[in-house]
């Protein structure tokens, strides 16, 4: 159909014929109920971000403990077990509970605004993803709080290689928490990604063709695809591990003929696409910041998009580069080595196009721009050490050494985290209507930047000097003491930088300077909104005429004004803006999953007949989930209509049924 048509008008918007009393429609906008029942993608995005940042701090504290332990040779701050728990939880937390949800926060908050939509395709599914993520996070961390020799936080490493994670070698429930936690996080991620895919493909404003999508939205789409296609592999791997642990199957049980190497394959079939899941959103953010602050369109847009897609696709064909030392045979090693190198090409293309974007621009050296440029530099270094890994013979010396630690912290912190922190700065004025002070913003950037490099650059040398990762102690005669000491000092400096960053953010949130709309003179549609954006997002669904839609609007003011007036009139005639009802049922469904998860981990082996209590809890959880889904479906996707006055404020009886 022709895209010049407004999309929102045809949504099914009839109220259900009869609402049984049980199907209460919550209307609170604030307060606990308001947050628990919200289906507004912006609130959900905010919650994602809120939880992610908390977990980032938790993961950061774990990292600082790691670094403190390694500050001196044969140090005694942590015991071996504590240390092992610490790096497992640090890695798992940072990846699954910090970077991924922080990306999801932007997907939720920004992406619908960028495509000119009023919400995601399935608002309640979106809420379900959020609460399931929270349930997963709870289960993952529950072990810290349960005393007893049978419990404890996960300690099998973030990739939990079998058979170490089997009951024989870690009989504690720590691994069960890890398994169930990741399982729920997987459900949450897949549900959210399906939602994003449908949203991006189906909910674009008229005129927003695929090749006009903002790059961040493109990267969201590709990331969502990576998620739905890679998570099933780890889901199955985790199911197999769980079966091994709880029902004594033989998947990874050598005495029954199992091959533990299978776990590695299944994990990395997921694991490698996962690292691109962590970086592509970051690249999307950088691809938004650089053009805005260069006051130029992104250089080579189609190629940047295409290379993003090829990175995603190639990402499925290189997983065994994490297994160069597992004796795959020369042919397989060579094949994966070459395929891995290929990824440098599309990544390089992005790099070059970012530089091309700067070229001839007029660079506004604001804080988001600092983070974006920091990203480009740091990610380049991290990418280069990635290429060094991809040369399999060289990797035989580097694998599981601090060289890998250096590599992936350069791409993860210098890459993902820098871009995400920059993204927060960039969109902060839009989200909250306040702006972070340039001085404090830049100060935090420089402290983070310097601290980061002091921490992780020496780790390259540590790795080349033979220091293996995941070691809670080392001897003084190995030549590692100095670098470790410096790295630890750097980590504290980095911590100070992050601390400044957060304090400044918190201050700005409450007290920061208020700013008007579009303070960066930006290019994409989200900036056409007042800040913070109203719950209905767009008063009139915009019609898109160019790639940088908002930039175009700003330069064709009259034409756009006329068009919008006509559309607004049409919309008012159609009964106003359709808004989905709030709902508690997604939350209930997730709550049920939490109970299922706890049941599947906790009771076993502590209760005498064991299996009954465990299955009982699982069953109760299942019933709760079923109830949630049942009411969710009965409730139907009902909604209400908003009518706006001139200022865009809703007029009175917005909950009137009609």
């Amino acid at each position, binding site marked *: *159909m022709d*895209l010049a*048509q407004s*999309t*929102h*008008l*045809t*949504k*099914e*918007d*009839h109220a*259900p*014929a*009869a609402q*049984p009393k*049980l*199907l209460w429609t919550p209307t609170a906008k604030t307060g606990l109920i308001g947050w628990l029942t919200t289906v507004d993608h912006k609130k959900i995005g905010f919650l994602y971000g809120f939880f992610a940042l908390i977990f980032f701090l938790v993961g950061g504290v774990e990292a600082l403990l790691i670094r403190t332990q390694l500050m001196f040779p044969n140090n005694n701050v942590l015991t071996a077990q504590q240390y092992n728990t610490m790096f497992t939880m640090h890695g798992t937390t940072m990846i699954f509970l910090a970077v991924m949800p922080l990306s999801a926060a932007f997907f939720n908050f920004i992406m619908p605004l960028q495509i000119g939509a009023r919400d995601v*395709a*399935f608002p309640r599914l979106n809420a379900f993803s959020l609460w399931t993520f929270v349930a997963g996070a709870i289960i993952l961390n529950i072990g810290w709080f349960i005393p007893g020799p049978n419990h404890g936080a996960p300690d099998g490493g973030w990739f939990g290689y079998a058979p170490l994670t089997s009951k024989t070698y870690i009989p504690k429930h720590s691994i069960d928490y890890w398994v169930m936690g990741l399982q729920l996080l997987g459900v949450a991620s*897949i549900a959210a990604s*399906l*939602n994003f*895919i*449908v949203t991006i*493909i*189906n*909910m*674009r404003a008229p005129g*927003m063709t695929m090749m006009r999508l903002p790059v961040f939205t493109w990267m969201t789409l590709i990331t969502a695809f990576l998620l*739905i*296609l*890679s*998570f*099933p*592999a780890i*889901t*199955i*791997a985790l*199911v*197999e591990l769980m*079966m091994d642990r709880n*029902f*004594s*199957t*033989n*998947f990874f049980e050598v005495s*029954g*003929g*199992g*091959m533990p190497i*299978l776990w590695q394959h*299944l994990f990395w*079939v997921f694991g490698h696409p996962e690292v691109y899941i962590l970086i592509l959103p970051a690249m999307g953010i950088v691809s938004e910041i650089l053009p805005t602050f260069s006051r130029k369109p992104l250089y080579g847009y189609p190629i940047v998009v295409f290379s993003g897609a090829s990175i995603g696709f190639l990402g499925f064909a290189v997983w065994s580069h994490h297994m160069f030392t597992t004796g795959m045979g020369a042919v397989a090693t060579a094949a994966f080595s070459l395929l891995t190198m290929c990824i440098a090409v599309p990544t390089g293309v992005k790099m070059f196009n970012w530089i091309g974007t700067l070229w001839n621009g007029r660079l506004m050296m604001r804080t988001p721009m600092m983070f974006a440029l920091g990203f480009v530099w740091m990610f380049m270094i991290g990418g280069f050490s990635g290429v060094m890994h991809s040369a399999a013979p060289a990797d035989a010396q580097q694998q599981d050494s601090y060289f890998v630690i250096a590599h992936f912290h350069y791409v993860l912190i210098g890459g993902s985290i820098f871009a995400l922190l920059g993204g927060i700065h960039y969109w902060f004025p839009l989200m909250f209507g306040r702006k972070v002070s340039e001085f404090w913003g830049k100060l935090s950037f420089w402290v983070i930047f310097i601290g980061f490099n002091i921490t992780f650059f020496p780790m390259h040398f540590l790795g080349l000097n033979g220091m293996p990762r995941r070691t809670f102690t080392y001897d003084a005669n190995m030549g590692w003491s100095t670098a470790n000491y410096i790295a630890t000092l750097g980590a504290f400096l980095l911590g100070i930088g992050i601390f400044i960053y957060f304090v400044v953010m918190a201050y700005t949130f409450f007290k920061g300077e208020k700013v008007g709309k579009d303070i960066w003179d930006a290019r994409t549609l989200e900036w056409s909104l007042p800040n913070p954006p109203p719950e209905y997002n767009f008063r009139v669904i915009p019609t898109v005429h160019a790639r940088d839609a908002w930039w175009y609007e700003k330069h064709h003011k009259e034409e756009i004004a006329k068009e919008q007036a006509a559309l607004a009139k049409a919309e008012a005639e159609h009964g106003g803006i359709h808004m989905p009802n709030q709902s508690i049922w997604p939350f209930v469904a997730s709550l049920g999953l939490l109970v299922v998860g706890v049941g599947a981990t906790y009771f076993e082996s502590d209760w005498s007949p064991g299996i009954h209590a465990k299955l009982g809890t699982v069953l109760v959880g299942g019933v709760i989930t079923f109830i949630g889904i*049942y009411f969710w*479906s*009965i409730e139907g996707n009902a909604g209400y209509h908003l009518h706006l006055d001139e200022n865009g404020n809703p007029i009175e009886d917005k909950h009137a049924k009609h």
Partner: protein
Amino acid sequence: MSSHAGTIDHHHDPSTSTGIPNKKLLMWAFLASDCMFFATLISTHLIYRLHPPAGGLDPKVVFSPELTSFSTFILLMSSLMMALAVTAIQKNNLKSCRLSLLSTILFGMVFLGCQVYEFNHFVLEKKMTLSNSLLGTTFYTLTGTHGCHVAIGVLWLCLMYVRSFKTAIPGASWFGKNIVHVLVLLGALLLSLKATLGLVHAVQVDGFSGAALGHFFAAEWLAAIGTVAAVAILIGFARQAGPVDFNEKHAIDVESMGLYWHFVDIVWIVIFTAVYLLEYLK
């Protein structure tokens, strides 16, 4: 919109950018994801079949091709019924749609019954358990996961079926009835499952004969009567008069459920070949 007059175009939804309805797109994306899911499971099974541990069980001794062929056929038929349900509701033929949905549910239950019987049989008679052999481990996990998919599908079908009785009369209460309906349907399902088990067992023991039928009734008369009773109540429900809030516009719901159901069917097509048939090659 609610004010729609005339036919609905079921392959085109003008409210979306691509014209594909959101729910359909969601389902296809989910199925793409589910492909990966089963690919990993089937890979696990095949890898261990290609490198079996010494002294492992021989699947040829364990499997029973007749039963599997039968349940394969059943699943195919359920797919047919599902497809018919979708066309029926697209033509606003509520009655025929409900009938097809019910048959799909029943075929699904028969399939599950066969699978439960099969598992039971393998464990008790063929001494293959989840943990005593690698074959058992991968076989039960793979086919069990597929079975879970079928079970979820059946549950979904049931919900859709009772949903089709939701009244369109404003203010009328239908909710309590709805719950009773769900419960009766679940009861019918469980009873029919039990009956299926008994029937398959009787046939397995006595072959296709009157004796089998006799034994079946002797052992399962309660389940049989219960099933009949439950079905009778269901028919009673189905006679409910008055307009319902379930029509052409809900075709997309039925259709996306159908996509799921058919997918479960094609996964079985692959499993049937890769897991069962290939074992019988000389």
